[in-house]
């Protein structure tokens, strides 16, 4: 947080340039990003993002919680894709424990994870378009997002902070009509994507504001640590779901859209294509949904069913022990990465053999993606800065943690 520093981070040069302070309350910075811009007229000469306004010390808090108590904290890091965070954390702990997850739970996780991706991309598309001046798209996107949030509420009881994935499986069996509702949504959604595209893709104003704007080459994107659509937009073909599969993604068929221009328009096209691929994965998950338990058979780690807890002594004892003293995790360390809507999200969990994690570190895709901003914006107009920030789909909660 450079705002408390005695000297400004950037010094204006020889009366030609001035420093413009954008944010942290600027609506187009998607939260509390502050950007220091050195400008010459309307041209950006230098740019420096400044973060830390939303720092809540989640990594430190994790060290004082039991392993299962960390799951709700992970929701709050990236509030647009809570289930992706849940998934990454529980996969890391399950890897530490060496726990096998039943297929139905894996399928449910994949399905919910893809719905989360759609949810996140819809918020991105709506706000990104609004930043650039297309108001209507926002209303369209939030119409479908509302439907997804209702699905989340049905399955987990919460619209946003779901905490639905648990160590060893998922929290509950979905309600009876849940799959029918998902199916209904999956059937109408591709038509809705056509509507968004009808508003934007061929729109001359949209194209002028995005084509050729905020370009970044593949070499620069790799060197700066960009990932997800920001990296694929520059032509680097990597998607962790396909290349390093986790949670049963190897059983699903989907295409990974890759661009080549590396501009705002390319990243927009990629994410729209991802919307279509994601709904395809949801449909596959619905069709192939295996039956069976949704939790692993590991009584020392997974909370027992309420029914059993009230009728069996042993289940009650396990429940009491897990809630009051957690469960010990064998010593070791694990880095688990998943493909979040923004790129490579990684959890590095270190265990010292006790019931509380010794260290939990989140690799934030946004933090790395944000480092590409100066490269994208320097030499361009201030209005392009807004387009560039939107195009990397920035979420400050994830950056500051």
């Amino acid at each position, binding site marked *: 947080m450079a705002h408390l520093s005695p000297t400004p981070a950037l010094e204006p040069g020889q009366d030609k340039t001035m420093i413009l302070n954008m944010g942290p309350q600027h609506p187009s910075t998607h939260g509390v990003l502050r950007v220091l811009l050195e400008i010459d007229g309307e041209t950006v000469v230098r740019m420096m993002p400044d973060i830390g306004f939303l*720092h809540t010390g989640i990594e430190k808090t994790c060290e004082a919680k039991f392993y299962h108590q960390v799951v709700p904290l992970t929701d709050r890091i990236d509030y647009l894709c809570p289930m992706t965070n849940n998934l990454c954390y529980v996969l890391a702990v399950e890897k530490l424990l060496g726990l096998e997850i039943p297929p139905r739970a894996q399928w449910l996780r994949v399905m919910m994870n893809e719905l989360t991706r759609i949810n996140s991309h819809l918020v991105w598309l709506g706000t990104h378009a609004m930043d650039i001046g297309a108001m209507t798209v926002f209303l369209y996107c939030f119409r479908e997002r509302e439907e997804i949030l209702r699905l989340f509420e049905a399955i987990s009881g919460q619209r946003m902070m779901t905490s639905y994935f648990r160590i060893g499986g998922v929290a509950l069996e979905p309600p009876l009509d849940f799959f029918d509702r998902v199916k209904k949504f999956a059937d109408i959604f591709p038509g809705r994507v056509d509507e968004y595209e009808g508003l934007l893709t061929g729109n001359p104003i949209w194209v002028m504001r995005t084509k050729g704007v905020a370009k970044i080459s593949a070499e620069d994107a790799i060197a700066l640590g960009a990932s997800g659509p920001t990296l694929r937009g520059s032509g680097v073909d990597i998607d962790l779901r396909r290349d390093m599969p986790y949670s049963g993604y190897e059983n699903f068929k989907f295409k990974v859209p890759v661009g080549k221009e590396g501009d705002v328009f390319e990243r927009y096209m990629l994410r729209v294509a991802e919307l279509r691929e994601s709904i395809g994965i949801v449909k596959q998950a619905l069709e192939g949904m295996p039956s069976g338990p949704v939790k692993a058979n590991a009584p020392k780690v997974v909370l027992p069913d309420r029914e059993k807890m009230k009728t069996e002594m042993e289940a009650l004892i396990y429940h009491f022990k897990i809630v009051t003293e957690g469960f010990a995790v064998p010593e070791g360390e694990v880095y688990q990465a998943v493909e979040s809507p923004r790129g490579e999200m990684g959890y590095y969990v270190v265990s010292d053999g006790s019931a509380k994690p010794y260290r939990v570190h989140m690799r934030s895709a946004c933090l790395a993606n944000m*480092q590409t901003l100066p490269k994208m914006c320097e030499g361009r107009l201030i209005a392009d800065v807004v387009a560039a920030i939107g195009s990397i789909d920035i979420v400050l909660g994830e950056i500051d943690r």
Partner: protein
Amino acid sequence: MPLAPAVTDIEQLKGHPAVARLVGWNPQAVTGVKFDRDEMTIYVPREAIREACALLRDDANCPFNYLSDITCVDWYPSEPRFEVVYHLLSIPHKERVRLKVRLSGDTPALDSVTSVWPGANYFEREVFDLFGVRFNGHPYLRRLLMPENWEGHPLRKDYPVEGYR
């Protein structure tokens, strides 16, 4: 599924491209290895980290060309106290490797890898901010998340979870 025990014998792990490359360059550049839960960890001495990263990035057989993450673990009160952890990814080969540097508790410092990957910039600033580990040669080593005038480094283990009151 019982966990397989970790392999720490360097002779057994020489087949791994990253270990082979580093040992081939300088046998002193690898002070230890660990293969645990399908993840490869290589311990690198403090002086060698920048060159080790540059070598792995430009390796012709299996280039670890992408820096995923830099973080740190504090093992207070044991010594060496800090472990700086680098996660590298090979985009062409879809392989991961973890490099670790052990640092003593008094004035922990090591070379910055920003000259190898410019993207290390904010990761190193975060580690400096939260652990107080200095990175020599970093272009702009200042606090990232905490206010400039903050005292102490919150993620150190001797820093209370509730903060100082």
